[in-house]
């Protein structure tokens, strides 16, 4: 993937670039808002990663300018401004996701993957499939190997999110934000409890485990595992 990173702190920038390159991404960097606007309008990127407090034009201004210029590249704010109002302002400016520093490397990578996937919108699909697992979005029916599986509402939403990001890692906070609409990190292992219930229904008794735990990162539903 080709990514654009706007970050004025050299140490943080180097750290993130190494991280992304290690994952096989190609990264262009900008240290100021105007540079990022220039690169964003001229280059073709899969995802934009933007700091908010940068010289020149701040991150919000960068996103607004790019959106005004008709550039719909998914944008992720990566910033120390973590208050509720800050996040709302970031998303209103036109960003697609918001990650607060300090962040875990796995969290950033997972969110970039999720955003990049979003680009070719396949939301019109009415059936999601992974190997022998099938979810009928209209009837809200789940079957595996032709066998009907009854899921509770929360479990269904969880499974749908995993399927929409099939093959990609999803983190706990991505699940909290997108399945339960909560923007905080609770101390307890809330997601683990939900996941074990989902697994008990979706994976237990079948030859292959579709839902995998990725240590230190999150979960992945993988058809080819």
């Amino acid at each position, binding site marked *: 993937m080709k990514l654009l990173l706007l970050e004025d702190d050299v140490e943080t920038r180097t750290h993130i670039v190494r991280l992304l390159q290690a994952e096989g991404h190609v990264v262009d960097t900008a240290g100021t808002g105007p540079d990022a606007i220039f690169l964003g309008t001229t280059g073709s990127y899969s995802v934009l990663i933007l700091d908010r407090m940068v010289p020149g034009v701040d991150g919000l201004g960068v996103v607004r300018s790019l959106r005004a210029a008709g550039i719909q590249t998914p944008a992720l704010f990566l910033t120390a401004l*973590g*208050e*509720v109002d800050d996040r709302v302002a970031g998303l209103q400016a036109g960003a697609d996701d918001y990650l607060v520093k*300090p962040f875990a490397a796995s969290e950033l990578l997972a969110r970039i993957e999720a955003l990049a996937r979003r680009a070719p919108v396949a939301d019109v699909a009415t059936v999601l499939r992974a190997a022998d697992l099938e979810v009928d979005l209209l009837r809200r029916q789940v079957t595996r190997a032709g066998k009907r599986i009854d899921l509770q*509402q*929360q479990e269904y939403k969880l499974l749908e999110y995993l399927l929409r990001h099939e093959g990609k890692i999803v983190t706990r906070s991505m699940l*909290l934000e997108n399945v*339960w*609409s*909560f*923007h*905080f990190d*609770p*101390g*307890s*292992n*809330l997601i*683990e*409890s*939900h996941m*074990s*219930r989902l697994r008990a229904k979706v994976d237990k008794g079948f030859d292959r485990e579709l839902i995998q735990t990725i240590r*230190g990162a999150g979960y992945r539903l993988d058809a080819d595992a």
Partner: protein
Amino acid sequence: MQTPRLLVSGAFRFAIALALVFALGAVALLAIVEHSVSAYAVEAAGDGILAEHDVLVGEFETSGRAALIAAINRHTRAVREDQFHYLLFDAAGARLAGALPAAAARTGWHEFEVFDPDRGGSGRPVPVRAFGSRLADGTLLVVANDISDLQDLRTGLRTSTVAFGVLISLLALAGGLVVGTLFLRRLDHVNNAIARINDGRLNERLPRIGMGPEFDELSVNLNRMLDRIEVLMNGLRQVSTDIAHDLRTPLTRLRQRLERMQLGTDPAPVPEQIDGAMAQIDEILGIFGALLRIGAMEARGAQASLGTADLSEMLGRLGQLYAPAIEDAEHVLDVSIAPEITVRGDIELLTQAVTNLIENAMNHTPAGSRIQLELERDGDQVRLMVADNGPGIAAEERSRVLGRFYRIDSSRSTPGAGLGLALVDSIARLHGATLTLADNTPGLRVELLFPHAPR
């Protein structure tokens, strides 16, 4: 430097203004008095002249010109306190009687000066007022009277006006100086006290200003403000000490771990050691995050713009999110949520508050405990309750657990920084809600009471 200070003092300026007003008032008063008195005196003098004139005219009309001349001569000779002066000219302008100078031969009212005839025509000139008229045969009769008394009266009044004005102004000025000095001396005490407070003696209080209840009220109010500031400052000092202390513990542990890794004395595999170190850093960051949130919230204070927060929906979602984890912790979760309850508030902050309460209930109760989550209307208030039937909190500890970093001894072994309830308390205060910790017989019952729920 004492004099200039006094001269620019408010009391002194006030005194000067007051002196000016007094002086103007005195001048105005005496001017009015002078005006009325002299008007009266002029009129009285005029009345006397006219009466004398009428008597002489009567004499002429009844007895003829010879009798008039005789009367004038007689009157001139008579010694009276109010001595009149006369002049009688015939139609051709020849003097018939009287001693007034020829210049006085005019009809109507007029004033002029004569050299006192009583003093042989010498000495100072005397002002006189005269009335003249022509009689039926063309004879000119002029009657005049000395008005020097009237002039003396006017001069006297004018002099006393100026004297009184000056005296009153001087008195007011002196009074102003005295009051100003007194004021400054009393305010000096207050200013000295403030200087001492500025130097850090926060327990110092302002003396009474005196001079009246309104000034005392001022110093009492200022002292009350100082009391409040002292409490806040002490709280702040306490918090920063606490922060330093509580962050030192996890930082020390982190340092020790890194040292062990450096020396290679930790038998655990390196990835595990790194995980442990990261977890410790996350714990420290968590403490910072909570502190920042509390600080930001308290700074926002009452002027926070709060929207409508759907508590029923939020609690429902929270209940579903927590149910499996609570079950896995071998606790029982009871949820009872009245529908469609909203309050004015920030939904994310309220979520944070309830989350902290639920986490507390999960972490500080033994397996098998029951956790209740309730939302109900209570009159026009809204009651949100999180309760458990665990060990509870002793009555004397309940108010202290709301303070930052306070941890009950028995909970020191469980993870956490003692910021949970402090955060809940801050959020409650921001929403004008009251936070109550009560005995759930057994267990702890935490209630948030929101005022005036919109319907």
